[in-house]
Structures are given as structure tokens and as C-alpha cells.
């Protein structure tokens, strides 16, 4: 489920296409490449306070660099979208910073960019997230702009129309992206009749259906303090950080804010399990194959995550990378991923392959999944991924944003403040049998959904 906000299209990076990266799979629990202070976060160095209006504030200091990160989420998202206005929550979140009752769009970004700060708000399925960073001296500004945007957006008509054109362009680009379209189709097969079948950025026709009044109404009804979590990590004293958050968000109220919707169970997908999206003129096809996986809070989540690493992550993309890339030379990337999340996100395998090799790659992947549910992983394989999960933890907590994401996960999934301290023992306790059991609970090699997006199949067949 690759989702990009409009703002991501204008980010600058030091290098663009000049780099030729090796494909690296993402870790399921933590983003790679992030660092730390010698100790894992725990109850004694994370400050957690719940404000009277329900907002949970988390803070952890790091004085090694003069910057600060503010990250968190508000409890509303695409789950609340009406079918005919898919993308409403996403559109609303993206519009919050287009103008507030205190500042115009240019004033907001002038304040941010003049300080070398950044702030973004974007929609998700269950929640809408925000993320900002600044030099510590500019923390007040960052929090002020966040609070203004969340509480008093003005949705200027001109800005809304401009944003709509940007979203429509993004959707037009999505329609040409084999990876995104395969993922979209995959969700439609696996989650038929379930809200997860719906893309949170919507479709062109549903975006056209959304008026400025709809944004105003959605914001008034759904944005509020209940269920909101915010983490402040960096060169700031935790108590001061909490006080600053309370100053700008402590008196926010929205009594009408609805409860999060209860998700229906995921029904087994109906036939046909394989579907294609044709995108003429492309050179490579993307293939997504899999099923619905465990929630992050499921008791067998960690067992499934370890298994997933053996299957398609560890080293050069696990067993699947070995079969599809290293041995057969069929793909630059072929890896598995386990989404977890607040609901039963997908457990899937993704590969980018020559259109002529799609069937061969799918067969190799199916064979690996069949083996994965037929017999326990080797003892060595389990030991490898266990040490990997434990060993990479300090690295994932290197940066302030890594720490912020990690402590927000504690809140989001009720893991407890000492989760990372207890994590090594929890990982080591998992057995090969538990891994096999979790694999069998979710993955049925006969009932895997397969979505393929790419140029029309060679030989002219389609369907």
C-alpha cells in the first residue's frame, strides 16, 4: 500500500535518478537507517502525559544535535470516507496547511521555510499523521503552526482548487505506476467488501465529488483531541516539551468527534484470485501476491514477522530473493512484507519482473510459500532473524525521527513503555513451531490473491 502525499512530489533530495540503488526490503516493525544514546527507550526515559482533553504527549530528550522532531496522529482517516467521496479524509488532511484563520498559505510556509523547518500533515486509513522538524529554537513555531492547522484551517477556495489539481495529477501518475496499481488491485481482491479494499487517496471521480464545504464539514466533525498522540524528541527538556504542547493543544475540544468505526471481518476472497491491470507502453510488470495478515496487536504478530523475514526479507530478501533474484535472475526486487497495523493489513510478496517472466516468477514465489507453510523454518534461519531483529534495534533508534516513530508505536499498539527493553527476550522466546503455526494461520498457497500490473501480456492475451 504505497501512498504518497502531494507534498512528497516537491521534496528535494541530494541525488535523484543518478543513483543506482540495490533494492532493499523494508523491515516490518521499524524503518532502517535511523540511530541512539546507548540505551533503548523505556519507562525511565520516556515521559508520557495524557492531557485532560485526551491527547497523549510523549517526549524523550536527545541533546546530541540541536534539532527537534514533532510527530504524531489524529484519530481520523479514510475509514470515514463515504464511497462516493473516497479520498475525503486524505484531501482534508492535505488541505489543513493551505491556510488558517491566522495565516495564509504563503505565511505558513514562509514561517516554516525561513527557519529551515518542515511540517506535513497527511491522511491514512485509520489515522491522519503529522510530522515536523526544526532547530530546537524553533519548536514553539512548529507547535503553533501544527495547532493552527489542526484546529483552525480556513480552506481557502483558491487553494482547495489548486490542491485538487495536484491530487488529480498524482492519481494520473498513480494510474501509470505498475507497483501502485498492482497494490491497489491486490487490495481489491483480498479485501472485497472490507474498507481496506478502498484506496485512501480515492479515485479521480470521487475527488471531483468533494467540495470545499465537504472539507470544512469533515474537519469540523472528525478532527479532535480524542485519540490523538504526539511525540516530541530532540534537544528539549521533556517537561518543557509537554508544557508547550499543552499550551497550544490543551484547550482543544470536539465533543462530537465520532468513535473509530469497527472493522468487519475479512472474508476469504472470491474467484478469480488473479487479476491484471493493463498499462500499455510500460517495460516491466509488477506482481503482488498474498493475503490478509495479522494485526499488529495479534498475539502471533512477532512470530509472523520473524517468519516473514525468513520468507522474504533477511539478507538479500530472504528465501524469495534467493529464488527469484539470486538463482533465477528474474527480478531486481522480490520481497515479502507484513503490514501489521491497527487492522489485518496485508501479508504479501512484491516483485518487479519482465512482462514475459511474470508466470515464472509467480510460480517460484508460490513454491516458496508452499514450503514455508509445509515445514518449520530451519533452526539457523530462525536464529539469524532473531539476532537481526534484536541487533538492528539500536540502529533504528539512531535519529530523532526513528525514536519518535518507535515511541508512537508503543502508544498506538498498547505495547507498554518498556516494550523495547523487553523486546530481545520476547524475540528469543519465539519457536520454529510458533512461526509455522502463524504462517499456516494466514497463508494458504491455494488461496493467494495475485495482482499484476504492466503492459498487455505478450502474445496478446489479457484478462
Amino acid at each position, binding site marked *: 500500500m504505497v501512498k504518497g502525499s502531494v507534498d512528497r512530489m516537491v521534496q*528535494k533530495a*541530494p541525488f535523484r535518478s543518478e*543513483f*543506482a540503488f*540495490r533494492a532493499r526490503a523494508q523491515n516490518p516493525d521499524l524503518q532502517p537507517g535511523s540511530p541512539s544514546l546507548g540505551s533503548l527507550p523505556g519507562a525511565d526515559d520516556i515521559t508520557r502525559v495524557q492531557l485532560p482533553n485526551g491527547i497523549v504527549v510523549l517526549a524523550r530528550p536527545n541533546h546530541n544535535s540541536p*534539532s527537534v522532531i514533532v510527530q504524531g496522529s489524529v484519530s481520523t482517516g479514510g475509514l470515514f470516507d463515504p464511497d462516493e467521496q473516497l479520498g475525503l479524509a486524505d484531501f482534508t488532511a492535505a488541505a489543513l496547511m493551505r491556510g488558517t484563520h491566522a495565516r495564509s498559505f504563503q505565511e505558513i510556509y514562509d514561517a516554516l521555510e525561513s527557519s529551515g523547518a518542515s511540517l506535513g500533515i497527511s491522511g491514512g486509513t485509520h489515522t491522519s499523521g503529522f510530522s515536523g522538524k526544526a532547530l530546537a529554537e524553533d519548536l514553539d513555531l512548529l507547535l503553533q503552526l501544527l495547532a493552527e492547522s489542526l484546529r483552525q484551517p480556513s480552506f481557502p477556495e483558491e487553494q482547495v482548487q489548486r490542491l485538487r489539481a495536484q491530487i488529480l495529477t498524482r492519481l494520473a501518475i498513480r494510474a501509470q505506476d505498475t507497483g501502485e496499481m498492482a497494490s491497489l488491485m491486490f487490495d481489491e481482491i483480498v479485501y472485497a467488501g472490507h474498507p481496506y479494499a478502498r484506496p485512501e487517496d480515492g479515485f479521480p471521480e470521487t475527488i471531483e465529488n468533494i467540495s470545499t464545504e465537504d472539507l470544512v464539514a469533515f474537519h469540523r466533525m472528525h478532527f479532535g483531541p480524542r485519540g490523538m498522540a504526539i511525540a516530541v524528541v530532540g534537544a528539549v527538556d521533556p517537561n518543557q516539551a509537554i508544557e508547550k504542547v499543552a499550551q497550544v493543544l490543551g484547550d482543544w475540544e470536539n465533543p462530537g468527534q465520532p468513535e473509530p468505526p469497527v472493522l468487519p471481518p475479512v472474508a476469504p476472497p472470491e474467484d478469480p484470485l488473479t487479476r491484471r491491470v493493463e*498499462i500499455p507502453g510500460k517495460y516491466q510488470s509488477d506482481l503482488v501476491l498474498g493475503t490478509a495478515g495479522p494485526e499488529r496487536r495479534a498475539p502471533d504478530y512477532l512470530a509472523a514477522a520473524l517468519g516473514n523475514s525468513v520468507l522474504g526479507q533477511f539478507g538479500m530478501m530472504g528465501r524469495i530473493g534467493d529464488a527469484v533474484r539470486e538463482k533465477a535472475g528474474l527480478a531486481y526486487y522480490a520481497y515479502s512484507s507484513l503490514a501489521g497495523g491497527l487492522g489485518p493489513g496485508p501479508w504479501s510478496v512484491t516483485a518487479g519482473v*519482465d512482462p514475459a517472466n511474470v508466470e515464472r516468477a509467480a510460480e517460484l514465489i508460490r513454491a516458496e510459500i508452499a514450503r514455508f507453510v509445509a515445514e518449520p523454518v530451519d533452526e539457523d534461519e530462525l536464529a539469524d532473524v532473531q539476532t537481526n531483529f534484536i541487533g538492528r534495534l539500536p540502529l533504528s533508534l539512531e535519529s530523532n525521527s526513528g525514536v519518535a516513530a518507535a515511541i508512537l508505536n508503543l502508544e498506538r499498539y498498547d505495547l507498554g513503555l518498556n516494550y523495547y527493553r523487553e523486546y530481545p527476550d520476547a524475540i528469543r522466546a519465539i519457536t520454529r513451531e510458533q512461526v509455522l503455526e502463524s504462517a499456516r494461520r494466514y497463508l494458504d498457497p491455494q488461496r493467494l490473491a495475485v495482482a499484476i500490473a504492466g503492459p498487455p501480456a505478450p502474445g496478446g492475451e489479457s484478462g
Partner: protein
Amino acid sequence: MQTSFNKFRLSNGLQVLLKEIHTAPLISNWVWYRVGSRDERTGITGISHWSEHMQFKGTPEFPANILDKAIAREGGYWNAFTFLDWTTYFETMPADKIDLAMRLEADRMNNSLFDAEELESERTVIISERQGHENEPLFLLGEEVQAAAFRVHPYHHEIIGDLADLQSMSREDLYNHYRAYYVPGNAVVAIAGDFETESMLARIRELFEPIPSGGEAPRLVRPEPVQSGERRVLVEGPGETTYVQAAYHAPAAADPDFFPYLVTDSLLTGPSNLNMFGGGISNKTSRLYRALVEGELAVSVSGGLTATIDPFLHTIVLTIHPRATAEQAVAALDDEIKRLQDAPPPEAEVKRAVKQARALFAYGSESISNQAFWMGYSEMFGTYDWFLTYLDRLESVTPDEVQRIARAYLRPGNRVLGTYLPSASNSEQVA
């Protein structure tokens, strides 16, 4: 940011840069080679990148399937990048495990197998990587623009290489390339993190000094003649979205003009970001965003300079608004450039660009991997001094210099103007 570091040269020519940072129990180990697509003649384009892939395919001591697992097992993060001018490999690991990464790098500097069977399997992997790129309109456009900008200089071709060469290169080509460029005299080791310099240097000597120095790495010297007159490129392909890429011949990183040009670019397209890890900041108050996005001619604007050994390109990329045309957007782009050519920018605007660069530096310095990256990276086209004086040199840029840069470089006669036109909309126009 802490700036003290140590620089050494071993007897076999290997350069070593060490920087102690004791904020976290991590070490980031990088090995840089002075080889990239600039060293590739016609027939072997893409060979540097392919060689990089082969460096993961094993040595007698670390067979192919052992390498990735050995690092991952210890909780390490690693990757490799091939660029125009250089190729680099890195591992960031818990400090007490870094020896494994160092042994691995010393070993594959000299002992990679380039096994024929592995090489054939990697051929199709890389072709698949290229096909993935070809799915992206901006790759297709960028490749044509770059080729039009460099008729003579080997910056002409993409790093991934041309399909014809990827299909025809032999093991002998690849192995000779490896032998010629992967030698201590052509390499830089850059390590940052939680270690003591003395013992770290001793270990580096132990591992790397026995490797024979090798010969002088061959160089392809083909300077690009001055461009006379604007070049235009049209690429047609699937989709609904039109893109424009304007690429101006720009100074090399070591050229004194590079720094005022960075400020000029920052004013036009947004803050420059030198961080390898950690994103940048938004550019919504940049001149081109305001003119083109706020003016509803484009939905996004991006751009940047690249620090290179030889003069490369300053690129500006526009995603055209669905209700505008490429011509309208380019006219507005040219108006903005003219505004900068006509009058120097306000002092405050220049100062602001410097503050932005300073903040981005602070974000980047959180990461030990970034700190090690910066040392080796700046060594590839200058020295680490280039990096250490980066902010000071930006600070000394004056508004008049920005105007001078705009006049000297941002001329139509100095650019390639590329347009990606969706074939669907094109055929509609025809019909």
C-alpha cells in the same frame, strides 16, 4: 557539529578518514572507489554499476550467500551506490560488530570472484532494474536530456548503462574493470562512530595494507565542448502527465562558482540538501514554486545541482498542471530567471537560504551514517574541507554573485530543454 577528524595514507596508497563520535554505540564504515559511469566508454556503459552488484556475489572467504546474512545477523544496515564519479559501499553496525564489515570490505577489494554463472544471473537482474526505471517517465526524459547535454563527455549515458551494452558485456570486461579500479590507491576508507582512532587505524593497517597497491587507474578524458545554442528534446510515452526538464551546464564542485550557484538554485527551486539519510524540507516559498505552482502552470517544481568532478548539470523539473502546457510553464520559468538576471535578490533572501542549509546540516548530523558519508563523499570531488567550509562559503555569497550566476549559466543557449509529452494527449491533438 563536531568537526575534528584524522586523515592518513597507507603505504599502498589507501586514503583513510576517521572521525570519532561517541554519542551512540554505532560505527559506520564506508569504502569509496574513484570509479563511476564517467570511466565507461561506449560498449561497456553500466559496467561500474554491474561491478558493484558483483561485489555482493562472493569471494572465497565470504561466498555469495553468506555476505548479506553475515551483516544482517549482526543487526547491521548496508548498501552500495554507483554514481557518475564514484562507487561506494557502507555498513552501519553496532560498534562491537564493525570488524566483520571491515574484514568484508578489505576482502572484496581484492578477492571478488566474478563467478561466470553469478554474472549471467546478475545480467538479467540489472536488465530488470533498467526496465523498472524505464517505467518512469522522468527516467526516460532524464536519460534523453543527459545524452543531449553531453555529446562527448562520458556523463552522456545513464549510470545503469545502455541495454545494448548490458546484453553484450563479457565477464572479461567486468573483471578487468574490477582489477583496474578496485585498488587501494584508488580508494578511500571513511569511518565515523564509537571507536578509538589509534586502535581503529591499527586494524585498518592490518586488513588493508597487505593488499598490493595496483596500477594507476585509467581515466577517460573527453571534455565536453561548449554548447552553442539551446538543444530541445521531446520524449513521448504513456500517461496523462506532461513533464519538463531544463538542464543547464553547471560548474564542477571544486569551481568557485559552485557555491553561489547553490544559493541561486536554492532561491529558485528550494533548499539544497546534502544529506544521504533524512529528507529535506519543502520548497513552497521558492521563486519557481510561487510563480509556477501558485500560478497553476505546474503542480510541482524541483531542482538541484550535483557535486561532480567535471562540470555536470543544474536541473529543474516541472510536473505540468493538467490545464496548462509545457510552453506556458517554460515561459514563466524564463520570466523568473530573467527577474534574477535583471536585479540581484534581496539580501534577506540570500541569508534565508543559508539558514535553511544550516538547519539541514543539523538534521543530517544526527546520523552517524551521514557523518561518515560526508567525509568520503567530499573526498571524491574535493577534500573533506569542501564539506567543513560548506556553510561558511555559502554565507559569503552576495546577492550580486547570485545575479552574476543567473546571467552566466541560466541562459537558453546553455541548456537542454526536455519535454515528456503523453502520447495519449498527443494523439488527441492530432485527431
